[in-house]
């Protein structure tokens, strides 16, 4: 076994960068988008760690919105990637339309789950079940997002 030298990580990173440079342009955009979504989620989690989870619904919907978007973007990336023989017959436009549709559905749910601000009397179906942080964390939003993502694959 050769001893690891200080050059090894640099060489590794260099080779990774050169390998990544070969990735198609559209995939790079998606990667950037995923990175943006994940960082947004991380910032919210940090905020929650500092000030607490109140209001919990808002926190959940904020984080899940980011994570869900990231997952959907990953799905898109998987389908758009030409090297994936599995999706060879699927045009990228079709993948993009799925991405848009799933995003719209996800955010409809997210909006519903978001803590209400101004309309306590007009609340319906979902948002009324948890008023402020009086209820235990309900994994509904997560299930919803997961269901959608799994159905995508």
């Amino acid at each position, binding site marked *: 076994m050769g001893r690891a030298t200080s050059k090894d990580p640099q060489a590794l990173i260099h080779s990774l960068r050169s390998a990544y440079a070969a990735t198609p342009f559209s995939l790079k955009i998606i990667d950037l988008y995923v990175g943006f979504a994940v960082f947004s989620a991380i910032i919210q989690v*940090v905020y929650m760690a500092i000030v607490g989870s109140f209001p919990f619904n808002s926190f959940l919907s904020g984080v899940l919105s980011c994570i869900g978007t990231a997952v959907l973007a990953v799905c898109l990336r998987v389908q758009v990637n030409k090297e994936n023989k599995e999706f060879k017959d699927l045009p990228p436009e079709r993948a993009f339309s799925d991405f848009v549709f799933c995003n719209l559905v996800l955010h409809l749910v997210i909006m519903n789950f978001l803590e209400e601000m101004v309309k306590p009397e007009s609340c319906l179906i979902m948002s009324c079940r948890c008023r402020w942080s009086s209820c235990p964390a309900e994994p509904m939003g997560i299930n919803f997002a997961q269901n959608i993502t799994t159905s995508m694959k």
Partner: protein
Amino acid sequence: MARNLGRFLVLIAAALIYSSAIASSIFQPISDSHRSAALELFNPLGGSFSSVEETYEELRTFEVLGIDRRSDISTAACQSVLEILGSSSSTLKDLFYALKINGILQCGIKEDVFEGVASRLQAVVGGASALLDFYYSVGGLVLIKGQTSKDDLYLADAEGVFRSIKALSQSDGRWRYNSNNPESSTFAAGLALEALAGIVSLSSSEIDQSLISTTKNDILKLFDSIEKYDDGAFYFDEKLVGAREHQGALSTTSSVVRGLTAFAAVTSGSLNLPRGKILGLAKFFLGIGIPGDAKDLFNQVDSLAFLESNTYDSFGSCCRVSIPLILSLPATVLSMTKKDALKVKVSTVLGSNAPPLTVNLLQVFRSGSKDTSLIESQELKFDPENAVYTLDALPKSIDVGKYTFVFEMVLHDSDHKNLYATGGQTRIPIFVTGVIEVDSAEIAVLDSDLGSIETKKKIDLAEENTVSLSANHLQKLRLSFQLSTPLGHAFKPHQAILKLTHETKVEHMFVMGSSGKQFEIILDFLGQVEKFFYLSGRYNIQLAVGDAVMENSFLKAIGHVDLDLPKPPEKAPQPPAQPLDPNLIYGPKAEIAHIFRAPEKLPPKELSLTFSGLTLLPFLGFLIGLLRLGVNLKNFPSSSVPAMFATLFHLGIAAVLLLYMLFWLKLDLFTTLKALGFLGAFLMFVGHRILSHLASSSSSKLKSA
């Protein structure tokens, strides 16, 4: 506590005296309380009554009671009288009452107005068939005759009208309202008699005597149906129940009295009505007391006035119906200690003084025993200043207690004997109160087996005592005292009660037994342990002796006894829960302190704003990354149709996101979904068009490459 109970006993005694006074039917003549009631009851809203009838009732009541309030309402009343008499469309009833008001107020109606009304009434009398039409028109004519200087106002065919009214009469003395209606009514009988009396006075010639005498006969028959209360009051009641205008006993009796006195006033010869029944009618009106209704008050006062003022008829000779005299007592409770004198007042029903007469106290009975009278008959002394008959000293044989005094009124003038109805003997219940002597009171603890006295203490029941005793369950407690009346007789009060109160407020009551003057109770604790709930400890002893005629009713503390009772066996009854303090039940409830959810702890504003800014950082990084990658919009379709679809696609997505924003801010789910349905369809269409265009262009590129 003791003082409160004492007050309570006094209250009970007062209530007993009061209630028995009511039940024993002492009829008080009309007094000032009627006057103040009249002022209260006849208090029209805004100074005007709803009808002339009510206005007349008020004026008549005030006239009889001697209240001068005419100036208050006379202007308005005269105004409406003028209107009614002047109008040709006013009803018979209104005309009748307007004339009655004019009779009281003298509104100064012109002769020609009277003539117009009189001719109208004459016409009605000629063609009338219903009793009420006869009543109002004949009554109106009589009133006009009394109010004008015209003496030549006569009914053309008086006897014919008399006969047609008489045709409505029934065999039992009652009358029908009209010939079509078979139901007869006592109230109508009164109206008919009044109308007949009017016809007699309006007749130009003498009415056939046989008609008058049959009518008198009808009156006597009517009196056969008179009804009676136990207290000697007589009244007429309408047997016709469920009739269109049902009249109560008061208005029916009042109507009959009006008709009777009117008829008696215009006919010669006696009606020979039993005097007791006339007095009974007066008693009925007086027995009502003070009515709570203006109409009732009017009926009462008006009828009494008719009973009192029927002395002289139009022929100047004396009375057909006797004037009732009422014997009343200012006080029916006489105190022996204060040496109250027995006072009796005799007056007419309206409270004016009676003619010279002698009041005799005939008999005195101890109430409950109907045996012999306690006294000889004696005459009461007349005090002309106060118009009161007094008996200075109560008879020697009268002790405390409840008695029935029997009085008799004897008129001095033999002429008056036909004029007044005294009703023979008057029985009036009277309470004689006095101080009861309490003697030789003592309390003792006895040994059960031998009956020997272990401790014995004298007590003075005139004041509170603090005797201290102790006993166990094998011993007995004995309390004894004597009660005697001022005359030395034995006295048995309504209540003689021994009360033991445990420290835990559990109370036990025992009724004292008596033999003669001696009152005694022996409490055998062995027999009482269960009743005492095996509660050992200190019991406070109280004795209550009370009676309506006992002026010194008392509730006194005697002291306490320390009881040593055995331990309770299993299943022993538990002492009952003490009633809650009424303050706890009915008093104010504790204030409810509302607890609100404490607001959640929120982070400082700056921190939240900072993180809001921080969430923009990744987006900024995303944009920078895009720039570095060299993203451009060169692939945006250049030809117009796809470009339009592409723009619409992006705008559609933006619109959906905007809709979500609105959903969060103010829309509800249904509105949102509806809008989303339209937007989604649109988005799908344009999305499909642009994406298929892109797909075809890319595939053609691939092919060309």
